[in-house]
């Protein structure tokens, strides 16, 4: 079964092209051009992995991240942003991001991260909202990819 992915980014052109490229690679992609649109979608559908931009006009990406995690603590969320400062990267990690990538991104790396995140996601049938909650408490697991990215940010500064 194809991995379901929700892409959230306010740049609609970026969203459309990346969605097409991920679809070519066999992923089932839904897009949202704002944090609010994503939260609306989240109320009606289930996604194995969310790929989230941090800087959006209508709602800050960290706020979207926080809300998505509040709705589903087991949600696998990859932050994909051109604005990954150390402070925001650490905050994203603390809020529960599974990984963090900077734009421009290598598509192979992104697909690899999505598949890794999907492997760690609970299996819930699409559209089965009743099955979403409550999720079993998740154990804290190491996130080597995220830690590597954060180390890179520290090396590169803000």
């Amino acid at each position, binding site marked *: 079964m194809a991995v379901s992915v929700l892409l959230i980014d306010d740049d609609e*052109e970026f969203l459309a*092209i990346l969605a097409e*490229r991920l679809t*070519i690679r066999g992923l089932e992609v839904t897009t949202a051009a704002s944090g609010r649109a994503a939260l609306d979608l989240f109320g009606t559908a289930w996604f194995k992995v969310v790929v989230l931009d941090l800087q*959006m*006009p209508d709602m800050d990406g960290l706020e979207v991240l926080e809300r998505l995690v509040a709705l589903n603590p087991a949600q696998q969320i990859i932050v994909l942003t051109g604005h990954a400062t150390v402070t925001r990267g650490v905050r994203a990690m603390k809020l529960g991001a599974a990984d963090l990538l*900077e*734009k421009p991104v290598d598509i192979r790396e992104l697909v690899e991260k999505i598949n890794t995140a999907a492997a760690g996601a609970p299996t819930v049938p699409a559209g089965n909202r009743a099955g979403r909650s409550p999720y079993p408490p998740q154990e804290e697991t190491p996130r080597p990819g995220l830690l590597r990215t954060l180390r890179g940010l520290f090396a590169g500064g803000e």
Partner: protein
Amino acid sequence: MSSYHGKVDSLGLSFFGSMTASISHEIKNSLAIINENAGLLGDLVALSEKGRPLDPERMKTIADSIRRRVQSADDIVRRLNRFAHSANQPVVSSGIRDILACTIVLSERLATMKGVSLTLADGDEIEVQTLPFVIENLLWICLKNIFLLAGTGQQVMLDARREASDIVITLRCTPEIPVKQLESSVAAEGQPLIFFLRVQVQADPDGSSLHLRMPIRFIE
């Protein structure tokens, strides 16, 4: 260097940092689109090798998008270059509307993130003898504080007029925001710049505006 000049420099460095960080993010966004478009071209060519025909119209659309984004990135770099030069300019003769327009362009991305739109009122250009970077810095402090008080949908119109030997810059906020509070925050945060440029900061609650009055010629 006196501690007073040090404060002006310190505010300037912080302003320069905020603006260049914002501009570099814009460049990254353009690069991300160019990267995805180039990747998509590669994907479509790879698919054509497996038998899916290439659509010339699609190729044209992708090429156009790349061209557009390269142009946009080039505009951003020009803006960065102009801004970088303004930081080391001495007192120059400059159009005040040009300074306001430059500030709007620099602040636009951060304003959009806050749901605020910035416009420049129509009017004739007025030549001033000043340090454009310091005025832009003070205007940025005003805008930053407006962002803190404003909600989504806030509009800010910047205008300038000559009054005798002064120039008066106005930031008009629609809908109304507590401009008295804005005046206090700007006076506190921008104090060294206000002193340096000899600016009078004045709130006009009736007009929901903040006025910055300063001599048309910078006085050392």
